[in-house]
């Protein structure tokens, strides 16, 4: 009786390890659902939106200009930021504000990207802290989940209707460390 219980317990542990590993591989290499908070990507992504970010583009180094990406914050690796890629390595970025007479430019160094939020007035991004290394990017946002349907996020600007704050969305897996704050 003790032996059969031990056997069952070991079997349960084995299954847990196996499915835990499969879940880890899915989150790490396929994609994950992320809850966004903060106003820096309005009107494309508003506070409390749930988005799906896929990981394959980042591992295959296929992130392009105009993508919305989720990256680790350069000042706190436990926090994530959600911004749009404005420039890749080697691109020339205009850093002066629109009101300036003389335009200033910088070049994005090798291995870095320049991120900016869509809500330019209320976003701290590369205009404040400079370009961030590509290695900090975690994934590319490709879908926004909004009840009752999902709709894709385009490369340049979203063509969706007015964004609604989403309520409880049951049945989706959310990672506990994936809540974002716009910094």
């Amino acid at each position, binding site marked *: 009786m003790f032996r059969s219980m031990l056997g069952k317990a070991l079997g349960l542990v084995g299954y847990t390890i*196996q499915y835990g*590993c*499969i879940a880890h*591989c899915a989150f790490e290499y396929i994609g994950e659902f992320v809850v966004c908070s903060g106003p820096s990507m309005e009107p494309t992504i508003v506070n409390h939106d749930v988005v799906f970010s896929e990981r394959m583009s980042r591992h295959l*180094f296929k992130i392009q200009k105009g993508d919305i990406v989720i990256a680790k914050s*350069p000042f*706190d*690796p436990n926090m994530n930021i959600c911004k749009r890629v404005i420039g890749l390595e080697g691109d020339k970025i205009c850093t002066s504000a629109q009101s300036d007479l003389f335009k200033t430019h910088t070049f994005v160094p090798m291995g870095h990207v320049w991120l900016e939020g869509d809500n330019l007035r209320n976003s701290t991004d590369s205009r404040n802290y400079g370009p961030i*290394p590509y290695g*900090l990017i975690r994934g590319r946002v490709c879908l926004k989940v909004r009840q009752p349907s999902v709709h894709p996020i385009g490369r340049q600007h979203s063509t969706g209707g007015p964004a609604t704050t989403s309520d409880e969305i049951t049945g989706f897996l959310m990672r506990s460390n994936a809540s974002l704050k716009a910094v």
Partner: protein
Amino acid sequence: MGVTSLSSTGSCKIQLGATCNCSHACVLIQGEITLQFFQMAQQTSAWRRYMQAFISGFFVAVPVTVTLLDKLAYVARVEGASMQPFLNPDVGAQCDVVLLNRWSVKNYHVQRGDIVSVVSPRNPKQKIIKRVIGLEGDFIRTLGYKNQYVRVPDGHFWIEGDHHGHSLDSNSFGPVSVGLLHGRASHIIWPPNRWQHIKPSLLPNRELLYTEEDGE
């Protein structure tokens, strides 16, 4: 010659004229059993069993291995001379192989003097292995950086190779974000005569000027 029924998991022998009530698929061969058909039936079931075992093993082994490599430990070969004389001391001999501990860096905690591997800020496809000289808030005297004294910003750390001048490190590209941390080298595992546990230690001329840590 009687009737022999072959099943995929065994064989049930029945008498001629009787019906087979077993639940697995049976192949009934009446009359003379031809050797070729018998062998083919055996091979088909063995092949299917092999494929099923392979697929189920594949779906177990690959995720477990990938998770182990991502979360626990990673083995890597050190190339280059930037960490001489500690790693790769002989230029002509074979390269050192180190064990990178990924579990200890999952909360991004490192100590000064650790040897760590980070994703290179210049080339995200490459990992570089260097020593941690300073953590956030420390004041460093640099060797060849654009400023002679640097305060390491929050969320960053300062890494240097032991072999100054032959090393692409923070003296070239500045403080590195902690989010790029990949693993901490804990042991040298090859060649066998250099098997050792790596302890965090700072070179005597690379001490900090000042640190903002509580209790220094």
